[in-house]
């Protein structure tokens, strides 16, 4: 399946919207600009896309506590971040304006049940695609390749560009964690300093007691976002954690639609600008991953 809605539908939708807003203007002069800014695509009867588009609203699950990806802004009471922007991109392709999206907080433990019970239409929440999860839900994407990365002091004084440069360096992580085990097994030349939480690693890096901190780049991003003056990301992930978009199991049409939307956003630059306006404040824009239509 190529693009579900062609150019013609968009043009037709825009024309209808324009006519509608003109009518609104002529009757009472009120502006309908925002609601009309999104095209109204058409979908085959009975698909999830048609249901959502005709309802005119969508419910998206995301994290509310992950800086750079999904973090609740207490003043607007809306989440902000890359996951949120990806959610808006997909909603936009369904003809739904950002203000008609209902954001629901999903934490790691309740993402599958929320999808299964239909509490959310889709989940964009730093959600790693893996085989266990594929048994209960389906994944579109990936839309981002996360992985273990390295955080260094601002300016990267030791010129660390990847895990091989950690030989003989003092590297901080958390005792008992998978990233620490990865360094111990695959990069045994690195000297590990292990605390119980990453905030202590950040403190030790700031004091010069360690040379680098390593764990999942999304966690590092959260630390950097709190203190971008002191830290920076090496931005060279050396493990693979593909982040996908969770939908109901076997909803293949919806999944393909999201994959199409993602590929379009990779191609037209809206994916990159979504990154730039969120996590891009702290980390350079990565290459978009290849969508996996399993």
């Amino acid at each position, binding site marked *: 399946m190529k693009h579900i809605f062609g150019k013609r539908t968009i043009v037709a939708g825009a024309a209808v919207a324009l006519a509608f807003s003109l009518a609104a203007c002529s009757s009472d002069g009120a502006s309908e600009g925002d609601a009309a800014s999104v095209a109204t695509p058409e979908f085959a009867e009975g698909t999830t896309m048609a249901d959502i588009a005709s309802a005119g609203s969508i419910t998206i699950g995301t994290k509310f506590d992950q800086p750079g990806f999904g973090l609740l802004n207490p003043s607007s009471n809306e989440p902000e971040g890359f996951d949120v922007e990806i959610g808006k991109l997909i909603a936009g392709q369904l003809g739904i304006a950002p203000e008609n999206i209902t954001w629901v907080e999903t934490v790691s433990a309740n993402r599958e049940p929320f999808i299964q019970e239909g509490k959310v239409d889709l989940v964009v929440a730093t959600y790693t695609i893996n085989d266990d999860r594929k048994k209960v839900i389906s994944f579109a994407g990936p839309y981002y390749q996360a992985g273990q990365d390295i955080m260094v002091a601002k300016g990267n004084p030791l010129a660390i560009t990847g895990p091989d440069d950690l030989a003989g360096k003092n590297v*901080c992580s958390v*005792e*008992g*964690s*998978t990233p*620490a*085990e990865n360094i111990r097994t695959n990069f045994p030349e690195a000297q590990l*300093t*292990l*605390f*119980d*939480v990453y905030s*202590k690693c950040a*403190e*030790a890096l700031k*004091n*010069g*007691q360690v040379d680098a901190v390593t764990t999942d780049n999304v966690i590092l991003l959260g630390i950097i976002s709190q203190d971008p003056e002191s830290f920076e990301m090496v931005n060279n992930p050396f493990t693979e954690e593909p982040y996908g978009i969770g939908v109901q199991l076997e909803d293949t049409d919806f999944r393909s639609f999201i994959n199409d939307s993602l590929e379009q956003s990779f191609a037209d630059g809206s994916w990159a600008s979504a990154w730039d306006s969120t996590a891009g404040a702290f980390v350079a824009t990565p290459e978009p991953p290849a969508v996996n239509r399993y």
Partner: protein
Amino acid sequence: MNAIVENLDLFRSGFLTTLGISLLGGLLAFVLGGILATFRVSPFRPLSGLSVLYVEIVRNTPLTVVWFFMVFGLPLVGLGIGSFFIAGALALGVYTAPFVAEVIRSGINSVSLGQAEAARSIGLTFSQSLRLVVLPQALRTVVPPLGNLWIALVKNSSIGAAFAVTEITAVATRLSNGFPASVIQIFVGAAVAYLLITLTSSAGIAYLEKKAAILR
């Protein structure tokens, strides 16, 4: 069981780290505590005031906070300690010292006033009477409570797992991630390692207590 047998070397190094940091911290606590106690009973007001201040501030601060200060606070004022092990021993010593001081002070108070008066009346100075007459008697009576403090200190050293000291608890944490099916066995193993230190200490303390007992 495999988790422990396969990683016996790691367990041994964790055990030695716990023992080492406890001995170093304990020695520091005993010396610092002794100094604080003599300051406390000194007739020179500023010294006893200093001792009260230290005891009250440090005794009422959680060990985790003291440890955090030793590891992350000192570097901020240019007194950083390169080794997390030494910083940890310092934290244990500094934290336990006020308790030692209070125990020794109670021992000093248990020596009857007549002893000190007699010492002063034969012409000994304050420090001589403390050193030669009062303290030797005082220390004999405080062997059991000092033993308590030592055992508490050994167990407190487990805080080191959170501050880059790979002692027994850190080893257990690491292994429990690698062997999620054997978490109970791993922590029972850790408990046995602590008991090895503390039960041996208890026996030693009982022996010392008998040796040091004085008949009054």
